[in-house]
């Protein structure tokens, strides 16, 4: 059963130069207990999807259409108060650039207690014990609860933010580049921590990153985004064994592989398109090595091509498989 189902989601940002169509017709689903990775270059709309699910878009963000079904309820039709009760309790978000995510003037422990008490009637004592437990769970010393954020290192802050995100036992956790601000070793520890917790609590996870090798470690299926669209979606193993979309193929060959056979790293030439005036037809066609005439004219349909494998590309047809 799928916990989250995003159907044809379309949203844009209003700017003085025009509408930026940051998410344009994206559909995917996440099954209960599954970990989905969303990958794509900077600016392709990953964070926008996360914020849309939380209904926390900035004031200039506009939802144009689609549905976001969470446990069979459409989040886009909920009112603000219903949504508030979902946030932090049923859906948690660890958002990007989270090093300033804690308020500098309040004690870290208090900031977690505050989140618990926003959703549950719970005395200070009991909440304190819960936070203590959470601290141990994420590998923090409960003695740090009374300290302020600036007394935490980057890795400790991120652990505290994970503790915060888990404080009300959410069903869905969205982690938007939760480790970009950290150094590699801490990054690794934090990812292991998230994975461990995901298994332990049977959490449903959406993990967002521009680093496909990181996602491969973490997630059972992967969605590849390009310029506001989902171009390919498949189970991780299938995606790595037989990537179908030229963009996915390019993305995979632009990362060095330590374990696999040696091969040349070939970054995709060209630049990420401007979402104010995206290219016509398939948005990837100006950079695509296999572009045909139709690619510049007609938008490829996002369709199922195999069991659990979806793609939007003119150059791949069922017969080629």
């Amino acid at each position: 059963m799928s916990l989250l189902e995003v159907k044809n989601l379309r949203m844009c940002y209003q700017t003085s130069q025009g509408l930026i169509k940051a998410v344009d017709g994206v559909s995917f689903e996440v099954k209960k207990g599954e970990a989905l990775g969303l990958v794509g270059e900077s600016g392709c709309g990953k964070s926008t999807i996360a914020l849309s699910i939380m209904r926390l878009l900035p004031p200039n963000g506009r939802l144009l259409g689609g549905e976001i079904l969470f446990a069979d309820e459409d989040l886009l039709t909920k009112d603000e108060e219903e949504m508030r009760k979902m946030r932090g309790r049923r859906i948690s978000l660890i958002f990007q650039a989270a090093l300033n995510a804690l308020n500098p003037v309040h004690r870290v422990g208090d900031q977690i207690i505050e989140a618990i008490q926003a959703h549950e009637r719970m005395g200070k004592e009991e909440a304190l014990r819960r936070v203590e437990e959470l601290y141990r769970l994420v590998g923090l010393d409960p003695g740090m609860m009374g300290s302020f954020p600036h007394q935490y290192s980057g890795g400790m802050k991120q652990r505290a933010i994970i503790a915060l995100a888990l404080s009300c036992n959410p069903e869905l956790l969205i982690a938007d580049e939760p480790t970009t601000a950290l150094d590699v070793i801490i990054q690794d520890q934090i990812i292991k921590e998230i994975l461990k917790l995901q298994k332990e609590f049977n959490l449903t996870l959406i993990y967002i990153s521009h680093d496909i090798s990181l996602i491969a470690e973490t997630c059972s299926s992967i969605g590849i985004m390009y310029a506001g669209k989902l171009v390919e979606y498949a189970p991780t193993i299938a995606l790595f064994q037989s990537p179908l979309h030229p963009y996915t193929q390019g993305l995979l060959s632009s990362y060095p592989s330590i374990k696999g056979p040696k091969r040349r790293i070939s970054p995709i030439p060209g630049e990420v398109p401007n979402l104010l005036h995206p290219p016509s037809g398939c948005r990837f066609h100006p950079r695509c090595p296999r572009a045909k005439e139709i690619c510049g004219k007609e938008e490829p349909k996002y369709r199922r091509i195999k069991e659990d494998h979806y793609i939007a590309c003119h150059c791949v047809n069922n017969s080629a498989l």
Partner: protein
Amino acid sequence: MNLGRFILNRLGQIVITLFIITTFLFLLFRMMPGDPTSMILDPKMPPEAKELIRKEFGLDKPLMVQYLYYLKNTLTGNFGKSFYYPETVLEIVKRKLPPTILLFTTAVILSYLIGLPLGKTIAWRRGSRLEMGATVFGLFFYTVFIPWFGLIAIWVFSYRLGWFPIGGMLTPEVWAADVGLFPKIWDVLYHLILPLSVLTLLFFAGSMLLMRNSMLETLREDYILTARAKGLPERVIKNRHAARNAMLPVVTALTLSLAFSLNGGVLTETIFSWPGLGKALVEAVLNHDYPLAQAAFLLLAILVLFANLLADILYAYLDPRIKY
């Protein structure tokens, strides 16, 4: 470093700064054109009498000797006699300070009491009609020229409507009469309302806009998004997270405004015939009344220096990141 050490250090700095300012003030007034004695000396006086008066004020001594006397007197809190009024400088300040505090300091406090909540609200409701209206209103009063606005207020409310007195702080007859305390207090309040309202309106605009801007900046911070993602109620996000942090820069401004308020304002005092320090200070400069002018400027310097110290201490108290 702990707070005690920090305060001691700062006090040391304040002493040095004050010494420099004192010296500077001394030189400044001696270098200004015009002879101070011309105010008290009648040209028709015989030269011996003139000499006697110059001697009395120590103006016959060399500059260096004058300076040393002046330092010694300042240190012992003896600011001397006014050249102009038949009082000592301290007596003048003591007489003028209470009205100044009553009008200007009260106005600053009131303006912050109104400005902060309003600034908070309009920042929170950015883009609403309330915000547009309050911002335009605020900018108007922020830029308006005090005498112009004050005169209009007097013309409308005192002259045409007759609600308030034209000026002054009290009615001498009421204060001379044996009527008890309440009528007297009422009399002062009656005189106070109009200038206080005018000043509060002008000051409030500044504090409201400051709070609004600070709050808008805070609202862009990551931790506000976290607070939303936690599912906190709007009221808690607004007060405990946004406004609490937006207060930090405002506290500094408030402390300094309070310090400056003790100095009064010459234009306001002139228009409302308010017996405050501001006018006395300007007159002292114009009259070459060195002792009074020096003392007043020194008072201002001391106030500002201590207000800064107080602001720093408050800041450290409000912001746990700052440690001394």
